[in-house]
């Protein structure tokens, strides 16, 4: 598939802090690409350089899609992590304005706005002021503002932060729909679980540098099939002491075990049998979370990154 965007060795320093330190990657058309990393890794700064909010100190961002030219930023739909709308404006007027500053002619937009409002069940709020809407509805309006001008590349920075479970599902479904429609999506998140469910490709950023990239299967495959997922009844504390286990994370009655090189899962099953009652025993690739920890080291991981 064709590439739509290339980021080449961009760097950005704020005072003493090297926020982004030589990041390169490409985004392929029609995929969902997950930009992963803990808070403060440099995801938002990278995105801001793509959207033209910051100029990189060095390096470049290149648009490789159709009609490449200076106006490519009008072909991006951007949902910032910090959500914000003009609270005093009426919904329709606000959406018209957002489309207008993306270069759309207002006259052509009214019908589209109505369609989007219908899709998000906001038709009856059409003439309400933004401040009169619930938080969840404001999020929806912001999403409409991101998508209204029919962008080729949709960039979402932590789209699920602050969403309730219902809206979280709504966003997840929307992203799938958009990909079905052939849109390209760049999704920044620190929630590995979400990325695993949605992304086709991932780019892992740590301390301003890309530490890992590829399709989910590639990334997982490269870490081998040396992970055991266990569900059991009983006290599983002994698992971490087994000689075949390199590292164990045990939460309640389930465990994810990284095996030592050359270890035989069969031996572990054997060791478990007399002590606990096994409900699930699965040999698999490691989860993104495991890979992430293995890659950047446990000590650097913020707690909110560990349990998505």
């Amino acid at each position, binding site marked *: 598939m064709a590439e739509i965007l290339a980021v080449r060795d961009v760097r950005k320093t704020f005072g003493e802090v090297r926020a982004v330190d030589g990041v390169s990657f490409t985004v392929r058309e029609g995929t969902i690409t997950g930009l992963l990393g803990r808070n403060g890794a440099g995801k938002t700064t990278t995105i*801001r350089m793509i*959207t*033209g*909010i910051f100029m990189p100190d060095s390096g470049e961002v290149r648009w490789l899609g159709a009609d490449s030219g200076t106006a490519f*930023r*009008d072909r*991006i739909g*951007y949902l*910032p992590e*910090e*959500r*914000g*709308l*003009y*609270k*005093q*404006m009426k919904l329709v007027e606000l959406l018209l*304005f*957002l489309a*207008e*500053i*993306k*270069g759309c002619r207002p006259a052509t937009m009214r019908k589209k706005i109505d369609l989007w409002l219908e899709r998000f069940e906001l038709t009856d709020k059409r003439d309400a002021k933004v401040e009169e809407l619930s938080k969840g509805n404001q999020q929806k309006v*912001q999403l409409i*503002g991101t998508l209204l001008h029919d962008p080729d590349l949709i960039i979402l920075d932590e789209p699920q932060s602050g969403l309730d479970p219902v809206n979280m599902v709504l966003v997840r479904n929307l992203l799938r729909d958009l990909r079905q429609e052939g849109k390209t999506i760049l999704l920044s998140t620190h929630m590995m679980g979400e990325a695993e469910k949605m992304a086709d490709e991932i780019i892992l950023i740590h301390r301003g540098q890309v530490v890992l990239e590829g399709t989910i299967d590639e990334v997982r495959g490269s870490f081998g099939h040396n992970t055991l997922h266990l569900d059991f009844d009983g006290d599983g504390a002994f698992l971490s002491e087994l000689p075949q286990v390199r590292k164990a994370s045990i939460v309640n009655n389930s465990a994810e075990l990284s095996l030592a090189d050359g270890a035989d899962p069969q031996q572990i099953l054997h060791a478990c049998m007399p002590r606990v009652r096994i409900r699930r025993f699965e040999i698999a690739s490691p989860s993104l979370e495991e890979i992430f920890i293995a890659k950047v080291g446990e000590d650097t991981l913020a707690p909110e990154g560990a349990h998505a």
Partner: protein
Amino acid sequence: MKKMFAVMKREYLQAVRKKMFIIMTLLLPFLMAGITILPALIMAKGMGSKRIAVLDGTGRLQAAFAKPNAPEEAEKQKKLDPRQEARKALTERRRGPELPADLRVEYVNESRAPKIDEAARPYLERLSRDDDASDKLEGVFVIPASAVADPETRMTYYSRSSTDLMTQERMARLANKSLQRMRLRAKGIDPELLNDLLEDLPVEAVQLSRSGEKKTGGELNFIVAFIFGALLVLPSFVYGQETMRGIVQEKTDRVVEVLISSVTPIQLLSGKILGIAAVGLTQIFVWLTMVGLIGAFGAATLLMADVNLGQFIRPMVFVYFFIFFILAYLTYVCIYAIAGAVCNSEKEAQQFVMPIMLFMMMPWFLMMPIVLNPDAPFAVGFSLAPVFGPITMFVRAMVTDPPLWHILVCIGISIVTIAAFFWVTAKIFRTGILSYGKRPTIPELLRWVRVA
């Protein structure tokens, strides 16, 4: 350009459709008129009529405190042509003061009282009666018997408030005028003759323009200059403030990031500034129209008083007003935009701009000497200086006839200043608008200007 226009349109429509804007636009002229006219009206009316007892020890001053007699009143009603009216006012002024209608005098002839202070006692008691008592007095004016002959004599005015200077002054004038006449007559001099001999002749101020055109009515010019000066200065600051508030609001609402990903900071900044400028011009246009309508009535009156209004409200004044308002606003608004971009709350931004604004408002504080000496070197200097130029030059253009090259130089310097300010502002704006938290120091700001 299209995007800047979109930003501008949004700013304009949002501001103009606010209820507060509509109310302020329609009501402010009346409020201002109220604020300026009301105190004067109250002063003149003295908050209703006053009852004052005059205890006359000489027994000869009754006529001085009598109400003006009826035939004169009737004569006043008769229609006079303006010139005659003015002459009449002059003769009336010469003839001496009259008892104002709002003072009700209770005249008591105390020439037979042995001690006037004792005679006054019951009247003084009436000063402290309840307000609604029928014999309540607001003042007691005591004239001792020696008042005609002895220049060392003191008259006394008693009242509940020590600040009722106006009434005291009026009473004293009435008494003194009469006493003077009596002394003159005693020496065999006709007081009317003396008045005529000592008459001050009035001076008429005539401003001669370069083209040789004559203008009169200088005092009024002075007031008009002030009004137009205020109309130029105040909106510049008010709308500068408005711009700042808008930027801070966008930061606190976190709208900025969406905006900056779609438009460049320069587009955003100029759209905003021009949008709000358009709001200001709309408001001023409405105000001028209202003033014009009211003025049309006023003009008739002024014409009768021999004042040619056309000499103040020349078409050129409106051209100057438009030019210098735009220049002044654009000069100030940059400072407000910087404040909005680097500060996190309105309060903080307010403190940031305050000292700078006080400095920039200098011509406003110096308005009086500038209006009085519009061609003095310091006024010329101010009018050609960057930042201070637009206001000063406008005021000068109102009250005097500055050479065209002064005006052109002022406009040129202002445009250069605005361009420089705008360039710096855009740089700071770009970095500042996305920075939350600590306010940058001056060295940091300078670094933003260099780097951005």
